[in-house]
């Protein structure tokens, strides 16, 4: 792997909570290449969100170093390298959908014309072309999450951080959005690096180039499973025997972490 875009060097994170210190991550070393799609999976509380937040400069490591494009995460954040999508859409409910998508561009001082055009372009891309003037509460959960993805993409960040973005959606919507996300990511130029936190094994395998399997607290990287499924992936990918084999591999791996403790 040539120069990684994201580099974790023996990173630990200890939270100083009310009930004493909690080691959320212990000695994590990880390298991620530009344009990769990485899925993070592991039992609840193993530090997936923490890892993602360390990349995005929303938390600071207690030990070790995090480098983003050979910069500090703080510098990368100031360079607007991160687009973030959370499990809930976090749309601002006093703004229309279009205005929500424009928000980052507004803050970055882009001219009005350009903002407007870019927002409409992205809303079309995520299938919300007709809903620009609606308010968030007028949209279904799946549509709101699409809008929040459009907002994260609006300023073409080089790294997309997604923390269980489809976790609250039903299975049908979820599988549709997985396909849509893949095609948006695949066609984007330049292609962003994606860190995708999930609890779903098939979702991780379907989306990712590599699945990072984490062990329970204190979180460590247990194993990294390479997913050699052809791209672009399609609906049929989920019926591929190789897909099942990989799902089984990740599942076994997760079970091993549970018993190893």
């Amino acid at each position, binding site marked *: 792997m040539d120069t990684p875009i994201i580099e974790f060097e023996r990173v630990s994170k200890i939270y100083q909570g009310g009930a004493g210190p909690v080691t959320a991550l212990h000695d994590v070393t990880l390298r991620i290449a530009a344009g990769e799609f990485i899925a993070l999976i592991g039992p609840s509380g193993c530090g997936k969100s923490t890892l993602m937040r360390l990349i995005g400069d*929303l938390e600071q490591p207690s030990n070790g170093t995090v480098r983003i494009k050979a910069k500090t995460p703080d510098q990368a954040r100031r360079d607007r390298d991160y*687009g*973030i999508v*959370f499990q809930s859409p*976090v749309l*601002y*409910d006093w703004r229309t959908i279009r205005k929500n998508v424009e928000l*980052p561009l507004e*803050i970055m001082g882009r001219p009005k014309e350009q903002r407007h055009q870019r927002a409409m372009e992205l809303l079309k891309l995520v299938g919300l072309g007709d809903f620009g003037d609606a308010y968030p509460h007028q949209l279904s959960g799946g549509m709101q999450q699409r809008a929040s993805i459009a907002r994260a993409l609006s*300023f073409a960040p080089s790294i997309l951080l997604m923390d269980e973005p489809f976790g609250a959606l039903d299975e049908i919507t979820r599988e549709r959005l997985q396909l849509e996300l893949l095609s948006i990511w695949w066609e984007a130029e330049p292609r962003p690096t994606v860190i995708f936190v999930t609890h779903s094994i098939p979702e991780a395998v379907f989306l990712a180039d590599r699945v990072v399997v984490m062990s329970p607290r204190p979180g460590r990287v247990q194993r990294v499973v390479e997913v050699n499924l052809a791209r672009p992936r399609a609906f049929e990918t989920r019926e591929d025997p190789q897909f099942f084999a990989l799902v089984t591999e990740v599942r076994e791996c997760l079970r091993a972490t549970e018993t190893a403790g």
Partner: protein
Amino acid sequence: MLPVIGLVAALLLIWEGSKLLFGISDQRLPHLGDIVATMFTRTQGGNGPLLLVQMLINAWATLRVAMGGFFIGGLLGFGLALLFMRMPILERGLMPYVIGSQTVPILAIAPMVVVSLGRMGAEPWVAKIFVAAYLTFFPVTIGMLRGLRSASPQSLDLMRSYAASSLQTFWKLRLPASLPYLFASLKIAASASVIGAIVAELPSGSSEGIGVMILNAAQFYNSRPPALYLAILVAGLIGVVFYGLVALAERLIVKR
């Protein structure tokens, strides 16, 4: 419109019904019809304007004072909330005094304010506005502070990820997120400012205001009970109107 008519009819029924049922004398509870009738009697021994007109003129005087106090108290509350948000140390230091200021009965403070400001040579309306503002700033401080802190951690994380300045975070997130809270407190403040204005009219020997009307009517209650009831109804009306104005402003400003 139908609910309003229904409500008026129900009020009429309860009012007149309880008079009939419990045998309440006209001296203690006049007929609604008599209250309506006094509206159209002439004041000043038959040469002045209608009583209702006089009441409304005085109500307007009170509403003006209430609005002045509401405006000043609202700004003060807004400013304090901003200050407390930026400097939590100040909140811990000053909040006890802010709360204490509201526990002292306004009836005790109003005469002090009126007298001492009067001695300093201030116009009577200054003291009245002061008292109205005094009752207004507290709910606004509390509501606005709550509102400024209502933005979710994740919405703040987003702002951080855009590398937004703290001024941008204020204008585009904290302030709009606070508006529902601000308006809830402004509605409380609207009625509080009317109470403040009326209470300040009582001791000042002032010449105008619905408070003065209430005092006068109370003085002549034995000979003319309906007038006091009318004055009280009009005082209530001031609060309703002011509340309505704030609610209207909210509908125009808060979008969603």
